[in-house]
């Protein structure tokens, strides 16, 4: 453990598993007090236990990002527990279901993705804002998007727009909040999340296909590869980087 984020306070949504877990672990390993915001307490508690066992500082708060009151309670809990909020990372997302656009049922194929990705970003950013402003040049908003938010998707067409919306949100908030010193950025990862690992188990050819089209020849690690990019954006080294999307996928997507 080092101290690049010593004393900073971070909320990471969707931190009970996958990319969120990797980000939470990486930020905590650098000295941040981390709120592991998870929809299911059992997953969040396990990550929290692992962080604390490794010498870090973390607390789990059960949080539903689609519910403004729940996000407000999470942020309030972070501030009450640790005294401030410097870094808001919104990663939580619901599973996407493949569909054909012409047949898409918005209640089934849109509602949950819109709620978790876009409404969740709205709630997290808006409720964190006064605390990020108070943190000044240490204030950070990080939204986890996807390469599909840039290039569209042939399999899940309504997934792409919710991820694109997040990119536009950070560009806009970078412009609106820059005078405070707050930065707002996106990460677009491809990593070995539980969902992707499960997909690999069911379809080994998928892993080979992804690895073959990836210049670095592998899928990212949630902590070492993705968490480290979040650490960069959360820390002082990125204080002049705002409104950007960093694609961390081993070079598979090169369209930016």
């Amino acid at each position: 453990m080092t101290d690049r984020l010593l004393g900073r306070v971070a909320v990471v949504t969707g931190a009970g598993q996958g990319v969120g877990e990797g980000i939470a672990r990486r930020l905590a390993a650098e000295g941040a007090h981390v709120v592991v915001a998870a929809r299911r307490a059992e997953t969040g508690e396990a990550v929290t236990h692992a962080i604390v066992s490794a010498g870090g500082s973390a607390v789990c708060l059960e949080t539903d990002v689609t519910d403004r009151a729940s996000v407000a309670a999470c942020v309030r809990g972070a501030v009450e527990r640790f005294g401030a909020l410097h870094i808001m990372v919104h990663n939580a997302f619901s599973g996407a279901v493949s569909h054909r656009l012409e047949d898409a049922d918005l209640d089934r194929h849109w509602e949950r993705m819109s709620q978790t990705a876009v409404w969740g970003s709205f709630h997290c950013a808006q409720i964190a804002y006064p605390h990020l402003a108070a943190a000044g040049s240490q204030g950070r908003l990080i939204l986890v998007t996807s390469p599909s938010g840039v290039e569209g998707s042939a399999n899940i067409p309504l997934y792409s727009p919710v991820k694109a919306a997040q990119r536009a949100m950070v560009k806009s908030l970078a412009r609106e909040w820059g005078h405070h010193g707050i930065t707002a950025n996106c990460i677009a990862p491809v990593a070995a999340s539980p969902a992707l690992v499960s997909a690999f188990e069911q379809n080994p050819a998928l892993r080979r296909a992804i690895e073959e089209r990836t210049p670095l020849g592998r899928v990212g690690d949630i902590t070492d590869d993705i968490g480290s990019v979040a650490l960069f954006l959360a820390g002082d080294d990125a204080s002049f980087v705002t409104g950007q999307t960093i694609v961390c996928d081993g070079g598979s997507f090169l369209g930016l």
Partner: protein
Amino acid sequence: MGSADTPPVSAVIRPSFDTIARPFDTITDEQWNDAWETPMRDTVAELQAAFRGGARRIVVIVPTTAMSGGSCHVHLAAPAEAVRVLVKSAARQWGRHGVTVNVVAVAPEDFDIDPSIAGPTSLAPPALSDRDPTALIEFLCSEAAGDVTGQTIVVDGGVWM
């Protein structure tokens, strides 16, 4: 099949966005619902109707604020960019049916948006004095544009480059 004499059935979609400047921290849930959900759901419905109606050329018009973002316009930039990328998804799915779907991005002023806070930022002045997208839309709706899909073409007088 269309021909030079019988142009393909086309649809031009211009979503309605909330163009009022609103500081992000003042936006209510009701305003966010109107600004985000309404144009997205309406645009999906319009795309579906165009496809089901046999359109083979679909053009969607958005402001360049989609790409640039905008201060006090989070609630506009988010759905505008989402629509722009939704078009790419539609292009990927509907190409095998011979359907092309493209975006024409116009100046913020053409959506009554203040470009000083919600448009592309450039030290350079506009490269052109005119910014009429009519001819481009006509081309994208023509048989000749059958190999162009999923693209965003900007007609804003040469500001966003």
